[in-house]
């Protein structure tokens, strides 16, 4: 069975119609969060740092935080929200009484998570513009990266959500996976200046590292061959995880 785009879009629209009711409240934190980070880390801590990798600390931080926003936007959606729809609201059981198939549900949910990551990422970007941290026109090249970063974290989160039994386990996902990624993926300091030898290779496995490197290169307008590896990582890992998720969705929803 393959994905039916109209059916996947009807799943997407379900989530969109829920979001539309609360978007005014939902969207506010999307603006506050970056402002707080920029003020505390960028401006506060940054005052003690003359430069990092050749730029001001705020300029170093800015592109990475766009990716973090995309990661968070997608992650909330595919963890707590999907778990609630799956377990408490039984929304997918209702969908499966219509001509919607499990593949459509997965596609619709991933698309919605990507949409949320775009909302988060775009809000962040606007705040950065107001702070004067988006060198134009190059910074605009970072915008198309947001959905790809969202896709990667949607795929990772969905696989996790489909495998766990209880909602409590999400705290592990956040404290032992997303938070370390946030802290050690080139966001606050360049890994390659702090790690050496084999550890640098190990660090390449970190999913957030790749969108961060791409976004930073976009802001600086510095293309390199390494970026092909970063982009390839995003595509290949997302694809593999979605294939896995496809089987997991089928197993969870049908028997």
């Amino acid at each position: 069975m393959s994905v039916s785009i109209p059916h996947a879009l009807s799943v997407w629209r379900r989530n969109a119609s829920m979001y539309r009711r609360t978007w005014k409240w939902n969207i506010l934190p999307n603006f506050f969060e970056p402002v707080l980070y920029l003020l505390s880390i960028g401006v506060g801590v940054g005052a003690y740092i003359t430069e990092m990798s050749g730029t001001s600390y705020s300029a170093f931080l800015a592109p990475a935080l766009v990716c973090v926003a995309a990661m968070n936007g997608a992650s909330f959606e595919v963890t707590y929200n999907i778990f609630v729809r799956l377990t408490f609201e039984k929304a997918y059981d209702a969908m499966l009484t219509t001509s919607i198939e499990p593949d459509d549900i997965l596609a619709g949910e991933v698309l919605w998570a990507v949409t949320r990551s775009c909302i988060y990422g775009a809000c962040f970007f606007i705040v950065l513009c107001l702070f004067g941290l988006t060198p134009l026109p190059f910074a605009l090249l970072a915008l198309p990266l947001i959905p790809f970063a969202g896709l990667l974290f949607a795929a990772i989160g969905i696989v996790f959500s489909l495998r766990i039994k209880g909602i409590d386990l999400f705290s592990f996902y956040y404290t032992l996976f997303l938070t370390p990624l946030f802290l050690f993926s080139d966001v606050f300091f360049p890994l390659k200046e702090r790690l050496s030898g084999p550890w640098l290779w190990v660090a390449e496995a970190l999913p957030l590292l790749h969108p961060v490197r791409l976004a930073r290169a976009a802001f600086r307008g510095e293309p390199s061959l390494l970026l092909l590896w970063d982009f390839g990582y995003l595509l290949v890992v997302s694809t593999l995880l979605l294939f896995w998720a496809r089987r997991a969705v089928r197993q969870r929803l049908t028997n």
Partner: protein
Amino acid sequence: MTAETIVEAACVSKRFGSRLAVDRLDLRIPSGVCFGLLGPNGAGKTTTLRMIYGVTRPSSGEILVFGMDIARNPRAVRSRLGVTLQQNVLIEALSPEENLRVFGRYHLLSEPELSRRIGEVIDFLELKSHAKVPVQKLSGGFQRRLAIALSLMNRPELLILDEPTTGLDPAVRLALWSRVRDLRAAGTTTLLTTHYMDEAQRLCDRVAIISGGKVMDEGAPPELIGKHLAPETVEFDCAPEEEPNLLSEPGLSLRRRLRVGKRVMIYLEDATPLIEHVRRHDRGDRRALVVRPTNLEDVFLALTGTSLEGGQ
């Protein structure tokens, strides 16, 4: 298979690990009837329904719906049927109208048809007064009506209702039954599960009595009653040691009888001779006799030795 058969299941079994939930089930549901699966909780009713609309795969056997193999054509089959799940699956924060809109889109309905259908089912289930109230503020009866309304959005040829009135008050049950009758009159084939024998008896043209994943028997309710028991039931308390003495009257045919603890139920074509016999036997000390029409609960008891509510 004839053109009028809507669902045909042939020797369908479903195993979950070591538990056999459905055991070599055969079903044939003709077009335009209201068909009931009657059995206690855990008898395999919901599993059977899930196999019919294709979210549970049979371990063996084949199911044809509208003449199509559900395993191969789930989309085509499901676009022509509607399902009301046992548990209402509603979006609590949204109003009935908005719920219907979301659900209609699952069926790929678009404007203006979408709004037309929403109006149609709101009228049919009398939801108009509460059409814009968030679902979480609606009573259980309204929520159930909305759940049924959702499953009518695609104007289904086959409506599947899993325990449609469990937990509802009598007035709401009566109202829902009358809606189901209206649908049937309009030509919709209905398949429902219930553990209420009165529901099955009032609504269903045919019932299949299910126990332990097996169909014990199938037919029209009066037909099943006639075949296994008799139309009238006399029920009274009678200790086992009293039974040979009281019920050994050669003139009466008392073969069809069941005992549950102290209670004896005797099934007869005509209850009058037995009543007179018991009265004569008791002389002045008249025991309480209940005389009533035989129902599907009795048939279930006769076929399985257990009661519906008490179930396995």
